[in-house]
């Protein structure tokens, strides 16, 4: 075991194939006899289906079949798609069928599946399926949906509440009684969709002789997809193999099980041919899960010296039409609120509402950005109210490093108490402020104002649960050629697993990452897995690779010792060989050992040798490990147009030990881009009939290269005590505090005008409207 590779910024092994266009995303896969699927989808957000006529569609040359709900096999017809995360707080569980039976509950819900020789023809036919609808009332806004039951998202419900729960720590009533300062705010927050560049897709094939399916799917976790399908189709484990090819981005929603995957499998068996479905971008806007709206009504009680006495309020969350993820997103939101601050009294009532919109699934940040926004904007208000510096208010409330591990008093989505294991929050904020030259800002701001320009600075802190359990596994195996392979259920969609996990294995085996191949996301190659999301892979898969590789190293040494006629403590591993320490010319190569390990005549394994150089390990974290970060953003606001320019972006980030610093930097910068999008650009607009309006990239605005500022980064490293590598997750830390910091900066820029910003995203028009007479009435400059 050495420490040569973990911590090194080695270049990615997978890059050359990507750069040459030689990898395989789902749509790059061709199979003999493959047919193509397209769907006829509900144009209404809420409608009853009265009748369907598929005859015209079937008559199109090249069309092989048109499936409706009635055509699905019994087992699929009689159950909905699975509930992935059950929870007692869920009041009414609503889940979709693979095709709409009688009631469509969001625009885009699939009603008919057309199979044809080409996607072009399938779309021709999908247009010709004639459907009679009775249009129903819609539940359009989650707050309206709570305050009135006049419009229910589901016909057979009398209320729109999907779930409600309460977080309750300490005694908020007592804390608020006689509190010297109480700050109340309503925040409205909107996030948008993941908008990965590669749309979803799946290919199903069915082997009649084995009565078994293979599903290739662009997803974030093959094993989870498999479990859903085993349940839905009532299959046994050996009847389904799920494989993730190269995946072009995921950000959360590619981890869900979607109805289209069931449909291609049904069609594959009925037609006896592989069936491919590739989501087009229009479908992506309508049917890929999103995060959307949250209304926060919160109050913060603080003492005269800005110490938090208590926080209480209500969160109303838009769940969308169905609830496959239970209460995961609002739960994460609620439990993220306290962040790095000591809050002994905290109560939040949470309502998760059904609306007639596509369902909500975690999108990078997963409900945490909204919690951070609420908390950090409240901290800014405290600073404004008490006339204190924003950084000072936060400093006075930090959990101190000596208090680690710190029990926040609430339960996280993994069923475990929120206990921050490690981290130095004061140091992190100090590092960020120093790097951002926070001290010098006042002068920059004044100088700018003299020139009629408005600069602002904002900051935000976040603590993030990462390394979510229950496990992720890895098999490390040395084949009889001596080659090292790592198999894992983790599925990269850009996170560089094929390099980082090779680095971990390389250290344990004293090998070179270039000699280690990492194969991901194939349920046939590793039996159990969960997937890559929620910033968990470095912790879970990384630790499993470490454990498995260490065990294989021990097996190598055990065999080597026998073959070199010595004891195990007399050998070491160097350069693909087991070496006798006292005489390094005496070696046995991995290859030789591997050949022995699978059994050779005359070679006895009776002395306790285990056959094969293969170990599968599943790291099961005791609980989440907590990363933290501070973002400091400097902006310039054009008060005449409302345009916002980010002039400086600084991040201090602690995600424990880094396997590959270059990869971590990449995750943070990429995460910041999402945050900029959420703060200033991205909005899924629906009309009042829950009809999606912004359904193309011209209207839904993603950040461009020209929207990205330079980013200055400081890395802190407080290793996690909860896994052998000391790592924490890094995938979402760039996004989580970003929105709050940016909005805080914009508000600070507009402080001469007494502008308060309580919603996100904020547009130039919003800013001009908030400026009111200052901009509208002012004669032009």
């Amino acid at each position, binding site marked *: 075991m050495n420490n040569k590779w973990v911590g090194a910024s080695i*270049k*990615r092994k*997978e*890059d*050359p194939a*990507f*750069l*040459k*266009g*030689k*990898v*395989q*995303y789902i*749509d*790059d896969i*061709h199979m003999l006899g493959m047919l193509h699927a397209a769907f006829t989808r509900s144009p209404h957000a809420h409608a009853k289906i009265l009748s369907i006529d598929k005859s015209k569609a079937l008559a199109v040359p090249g069309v092989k079949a048109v499936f409706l709900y009635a055509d699905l096999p019994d087992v699929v017809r009689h159950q909905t798609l699975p509930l992935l995360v059950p929870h007692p707080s869920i009041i009414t569980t609503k889940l979709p069928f693979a095709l709409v039976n009688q009631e469509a509950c969001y625009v885009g819900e699939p009603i008919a599946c057309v199979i044809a020789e080409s996607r*072009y023809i399938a779309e021709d036919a999908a247009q010709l399926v004639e459907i009679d609808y009775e249009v129903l009332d819609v539940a359009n806004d989650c707050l309206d949906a709570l305050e009135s039951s006049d419009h229910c998202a589901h016909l057979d419900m009398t209320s729109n509440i999907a779930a409600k729960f309460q977080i309750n720590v300490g005694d908020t009533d007592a804390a608020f009684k006689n509190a010297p300062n109480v700050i109340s705010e309503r925040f409205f927050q909107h996030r948008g969709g*993941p*908008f*990965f*560049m*590669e*749309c979803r897709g799946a290919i199903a094939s069915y082997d009649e002789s084995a009565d078994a399916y293979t599903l290739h799917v662009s997803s974030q976790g093959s094993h989870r997809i498999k479990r859903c399908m085993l349940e839905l189709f009532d299959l046994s484990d050996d009847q389904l193999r799920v494989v993730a090819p*190269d*995946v*072009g*981005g995921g*950000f959360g929603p590619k981890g869900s099980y979607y109805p289209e995957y069931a449909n291609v499998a049904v069609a594959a068996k009925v037609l006896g041919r592989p069936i491919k479905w*590739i989501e*087009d*971008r229009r479908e992506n806007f309508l049917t890929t899960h999103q995060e959307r709206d949250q209304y926060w009504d919160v109050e913060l009680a603080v003492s005269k010296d800005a110490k938090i006495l208590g926080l209480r309020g209500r969160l109303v969350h838009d769940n969308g039409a169905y609830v496959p993820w239970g209460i995961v997103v609002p739960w994460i939101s609620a439990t993220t609120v306290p962040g790095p601050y000591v809050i002994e009294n905290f109560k939040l009532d949470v309502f998760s509402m059904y609306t007639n919109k596509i369902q909500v699934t975690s999108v990078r940040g997963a409900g945490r950005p909204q919690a951070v926004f609420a908390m950090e904007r409240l901290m800014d208000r405290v600073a404004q109210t008490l006339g204190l510096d924003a950084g000072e208010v936060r400093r006075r409330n930090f959990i101190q490093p000596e208090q680690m591990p710190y029990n926040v008093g609430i339960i996280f989505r993994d069923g475990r108490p929120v206990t921050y294991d490690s981290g130095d929050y004061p140091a992190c904020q100090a590092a960020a402020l120093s790097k951002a030259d926070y001290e010098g800002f006042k002068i920059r701001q004044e100088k700018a104002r003299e020139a009629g320009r408005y600069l602002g600075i904002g900051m935000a802190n976040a603590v993030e649960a990462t390394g979510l359990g229950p496990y992720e596994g890895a098999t490390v195996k040395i084949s009889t050629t001596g080659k090292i392979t790592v198999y894992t259920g983790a599925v*990269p*969609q*850009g*996170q*560089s697993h094929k390099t980082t996990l090779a680095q971990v294995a390389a250290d344990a085996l004293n090998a070179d990452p270039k000699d280690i191949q990492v194969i991901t996301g194939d349920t046939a190659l590793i039996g159990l897995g969960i997937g890559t999301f929620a910033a968990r892979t470095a912790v879970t898969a990384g630790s499993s690779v470490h454990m498995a590789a260490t065990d294989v190293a021990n097996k190598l040494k055990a065999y080597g010792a026998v073959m070199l006629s010595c004891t195990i403590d007399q050998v070491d591993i160097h350069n693909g060989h087991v070496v006798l320490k006292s005489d390094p010319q005496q070696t046995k190569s991995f290859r030789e050992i591997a050949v022995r390990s699978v059994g050779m005549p005359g070679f006895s394994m009776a002395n306790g040798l285990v056959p094969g150089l293969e170990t599968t390990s599943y790291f099961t974290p005791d609980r989440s490990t907590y990363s933290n970060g501070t973002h400091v953003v400097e902006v310039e606001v054009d008060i005449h147009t409302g345009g916002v320019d980010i002039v400086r972006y600084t991040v201090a980030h602690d995600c424990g030990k880094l396997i590959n610093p*270059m*990869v971590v*930097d*990449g995750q943070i*910068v*990429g*995460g*910041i*881009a*999402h945050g900029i999008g959420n703060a200033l650009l991205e909005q899924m607009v629906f009309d009042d009939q829950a009809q999606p309006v912004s359904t*193309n*990239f*011209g209207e839904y605005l*993603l950040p*461009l*290269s*020209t929207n*990205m500022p*330079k*980013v200055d980064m400081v890395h802190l490293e407080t290793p996690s005590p909860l896994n052998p590598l000391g790592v924490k997750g890094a995938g979402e830390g*760039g996004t989580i505090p970003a929105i709050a910091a940016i909005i805080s900066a914009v508000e600070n820029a507009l402080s001469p005008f007494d502008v308060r910003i309580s919603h996100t995203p904020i547009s130039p028009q919003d800013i001009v409207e908030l400026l009111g007479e200052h901009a509208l009435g002012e004669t032009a400059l």
Partner: protein
Amino acid sequence: MTDKRSIAVKVNGQTYEREVDTRMTLVDFLRHELDLTGTHVGCEHGVCGACTVLVNGESVRSCLMLAVQANEQSIQTVEGLAVNGELNILQQCFQDHHSLQCGFCTSGMLMTLTEFLRDHPNPTQQEVQEVLSGNLCRCTGYLPIMSAAMDAAQKMREAQS
């Protein structure tokens, strides 16, 4: 109605003769008729740039061109960049700077930059930032793509001299 045409298209120096439906887009032709799957479909409405190829040396959105329009034209795709199987200077800079994560936007970025660096061998940071505004990336936050482009420009200038 199926309307077909015979076309002859030169791609990465090789001429391909095929009969195609007139409604087939150029990107679908490259990917599915010619098996050159390095060019990607990201939006089919001309915004994301994942489908960017060079047509007669000019970057275009191949989702907005028909295959029949490429008849007798010369196309360059990402598969035509490597030299004898080795990454070219721009590609190597992408690896050096960690300019790709999921890789889906990468071929479009490379083709846009191939045209740009050929026409602007000594660009400013701002010019690089602006030329990339027609290509979306959801993973990297663009900064490492920009630094790779600046680095490649310098290395290409050095290679010339």
